[in-house]
């Protein structure tokens, strides 16, 4: 049997865990058409069934409150899956059933996966699944997603019900006044066939009563005058309720839904053997972890611990990677014919991709750490503790998610970060968040920082990385405040958020999470970066040095060689690596190398990239950047990690000694014009300057206008340049 089933449920109900359990590795992540909400699909195959499984975004309700809710609702209406598997947290039954009722009101076939039965049991909650199934009239299957228990039974239940015709929409009594209005509207809507091709008539009426913006807008477009008529009925009930009961229709509807749920659960469905407000382990942990004094201290310690974890444990694999690509470069050097091809493969391909892939272990460890914080529920506490602070800057506690995804804890990516702002309801806070998240230390900037920190601040690696992240945060918040008091003024929105109980993350979840994000990074490195690396190689190679100049270097070399005895020349040109040279020969060799280096450097200066970099040098010298850094930064517009690969390419082109295959950081320390101050100035510039073009495209799309995309490029670069000039000039004055 084949069918499509959609997984839906509250956030933190174990939906993703069940999805992973059902589909295993057979999943695919994409986007819903036109929007950037993640769409996860997978295949369940087992006991003779094959189901296409869609993981809908987690929602508490089906109003049009957030984009996730709109996406989930639209999917259900437009795609009409064979069955909705509603994951219900058994330890939190009543609130979870609120969503279930809304599926039933829409007339969608639903099957409940009564999840976390084990947690409910330890909390002294006993649920009679059969009774619940009887009262609701839909299948209810107890599951424990973490261990996969009940998975088979759930799929059996789905298979047994999927082919049945859609159930009639559930009709709840919402109280006399509303019922009367609903009946009247339902009749009218049916008579007019108003939106009934998509939605049940009573549901449309209900949404009008709830003042659901999406449906009302849709109705106004469909038939303005009829929509008007319905709205006037709603207005009449609203006025009446306001006069008599001092309440609103949507309040009555919510009350009655909960009333309906309560009436069901009271009939022996749910039995508490302990009081609900009893302190659980999770609450006891919160007493410490969100404590006024201890909470913030622990939070800083946890974030610091994440850095230590990432940097200490990824050191070895990063080293392996570097050695592997160094070895690969050596192999190419020894076996490839032709200088140009050699240069393309080594400087363009291996150095470019290797420089980026070398950081994969680092990024994996970082994402693994973040996934632990996310899955354990600690990240929500961070939002809780920081909301008061965020509000000062005109943002929202939930902004913290976007900031963290973007790299608030170093190693995220501004692209999903910009997308994460979709959970923010207020357009103004959202805009401010999405314009400032690119300042965060994303995974692509991380290689740049890691390179500079390893080269110039090696003794204090973790501390300096923490300082970089703090600077990014402070800068982002101040800029957000600046934007919220100038270009995007306005009121703040509600902070209604669940603090999920602390949970031990499952290894499977952690690995899937880590792998997904790492794979996204690798894919980007493998495709976009490779192309850009080659383009940049070409920019740095062509046009080549004019004949006359090349000849001058050749003459210099010849002059040097004829000035010394032939025996020494022979020594220099034929010497193997392992054989020691006489001091005189050593000296000649060094001089030859200097000439080669100068030639390569003038060749690079002569190239297209060199010309761009040199033209800008007059200006960027104020911040301590030479033309090489300029080339790298221009490349960084395309993607931040290109800064590293370009510096690598630039320096390996300028450095001809094949023995010097040591890491780029060593090269930088020895390169003229580089000091810790230059490195710091470059770090500051990299934090703040224009987001990569992928992020710019996302910003433009999310903000709904290219104006904001252009704004972020120009505005950010101006800020970055001003700051790094200030740092460099102040540092120089102080004698650093």
């Amino acid at each position: 049997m084949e069918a499509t089933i959609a997984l839906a449920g509250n956030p933190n109900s174990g939906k993703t865990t069940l999805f992973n359990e059902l589909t295993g590795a057979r999943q695919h992540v994409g986007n819903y058409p036109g929007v950037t909400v993640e769409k996860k699909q997978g295949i369940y195959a087992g006991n003779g069934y094959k189901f296409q499984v869609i993981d809908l975004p987690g929602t508490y309700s089906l109003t049009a409150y957030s984009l996730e809710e709109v996406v989930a609702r639209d999917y259900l209406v437009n795609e009409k899956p064979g069955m909705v598997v509603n994951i219900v947290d058994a330890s939190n039954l009543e609130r979870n059933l609120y969503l279930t009722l809304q599926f039933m009101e829409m007339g969608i076939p639903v099957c409940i996966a009564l999840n976390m039965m084990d947690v409910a049991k330890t909390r002294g909650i006993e649920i009679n699944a059969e009774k619940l199934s009887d009262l609701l009239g839909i299948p209810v299957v107890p599951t424990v997603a973490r261990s996969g228990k009940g998975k088979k039974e759930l799929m059996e239940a789905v298979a047994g019900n999927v082919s049945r015709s859609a159930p009639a929409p559930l009709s709840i009594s919402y109280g006399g006044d509303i019922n009367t209005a609903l009946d009247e509207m339902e009749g009218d809507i049916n008579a007019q066939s108003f939106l009934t091709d998509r939605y049940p008539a009573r549901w449309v009426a209900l949404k009008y009563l709830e003042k659901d913006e999406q449906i009302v807008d849709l109705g106004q477009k469909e038939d303005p005058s009829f929509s008007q008529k319905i709205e006037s009925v709603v207005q009449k009930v609203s006025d009446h309720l306001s006069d008599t009961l001092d309440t609103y229709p949507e309040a009555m509807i919510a009350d009655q839904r909960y009333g309906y749920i309560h009436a069901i659960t009271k009939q022996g469905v749910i039995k508490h053997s302990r009081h609900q407000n009893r302190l659980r382990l999770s609450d006891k942990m919160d007493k410490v972890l969100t404590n006024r004094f201890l909470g913030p201290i622990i939070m800083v310690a946890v974030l610091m611990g994440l850095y230590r974890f990432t940097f200490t444990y990824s050191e070895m694999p990063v080293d392996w990677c570097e050695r592997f690509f160094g070895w690969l470069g050596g192999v190419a050097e020894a076996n490839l014919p032709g200088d140009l091809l050699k240069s393309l493969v080594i400087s363009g391909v291996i150095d470019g991709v290797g420089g980026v892939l070398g950081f994969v272990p680092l990024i994996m460890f970082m994402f693994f750490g973040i996934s632990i914080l996310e899955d354990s529920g600690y990240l929500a506490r961070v939002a809780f503790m920081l909301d008061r602070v965020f509000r000062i800057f005109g943002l929202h506690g939930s902004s913290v998610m976007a900031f963290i995804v973007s790299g608030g804890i170093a190693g995220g990516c501004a692209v999903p970060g910009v997308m994460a702002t979709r959970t923010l309801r207020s357009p103004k806070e959202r805009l401010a968040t999405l314009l400032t998240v690119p300042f965060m230390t994303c995974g692509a900037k991380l290689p740049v920082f890691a390179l500079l920190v390893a080269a110039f601040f090696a003794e204090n690696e973790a501390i300096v990385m923490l300082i970089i992240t703090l600077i990014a945060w402070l800068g982002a918040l101040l800029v957000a405040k600046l934007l919220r008091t100038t270009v995007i003024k306005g009121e703040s929105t509600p902070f209604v958020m669940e603090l999920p109980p602390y949970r031990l993350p499952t290894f499977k979840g952690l690995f899937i999470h880590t792998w997904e994000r790492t794979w996204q990074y690798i894919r980007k490195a493998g495709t976009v970066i490779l192309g850009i690396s080659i383009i940049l190689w070409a920019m740095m190679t062509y046009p080549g040095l004019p004949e006359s100049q090349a000849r001058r270097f050749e003459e210099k070399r010849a002059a040097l060689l004829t000035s010394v005895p032939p025996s020494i020349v022979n020594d220099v040109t034929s010497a193997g690596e392992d054989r020691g040279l006489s001091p005189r020969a050593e000296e000649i060799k060094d001089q030859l190398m200097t000439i080669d280096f100068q030639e390569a450097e003038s060749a690079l200066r002569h190239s297209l990239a060199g010309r761009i970099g040199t033209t800008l040098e007059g200006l960027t010298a104020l911040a301590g950047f030479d033309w090489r850094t300029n080339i790298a930064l221009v490349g960084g517009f395309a993607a931040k990690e290109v800064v590293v690969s370009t510096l690598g390419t630039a320096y390996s082109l300028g450095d001809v000694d094949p023995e010097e295959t040591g890491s780029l950081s060593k090269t930088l320390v020895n390169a003229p014009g580089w000091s810790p101050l230059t490195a710091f100035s470059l770090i500051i510039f990299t934090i703040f300057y224009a987001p990569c073009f992928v992020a710019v495209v996302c910003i433009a799309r999310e903000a709904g206008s290219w104006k904001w995309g252009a704004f972020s490029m120009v505005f950010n670069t101006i800020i970055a340049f001003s700051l790094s000039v200030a740092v460099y000039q102040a540092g120089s004055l102080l004698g650093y």
Partner: protein
Amino acid sequence: MLTLTMRQMSENQCGTITSVRAGGEMGRRIRDMGLIPGAEVKIQGKAPLNDPVALRVMGFTLTLRNNEADYIEVEVKE
């Protein structure tokens, strides 16, 4: 019996919601999460800067800002 707004409640205090005076989106969001008249609530704790507040309702923990808690009236036992 004493009626307070939720902001005025102290940590660990319990009570029953008597009214939610918010309409529109904020009201809908608050009600979606189960904060409706008749629901029992308990203040779990407050953030380090006293705002937002964490409360227990229907067996789970929810956070609200103080200016949102102002819309919710709670009857508390003394």
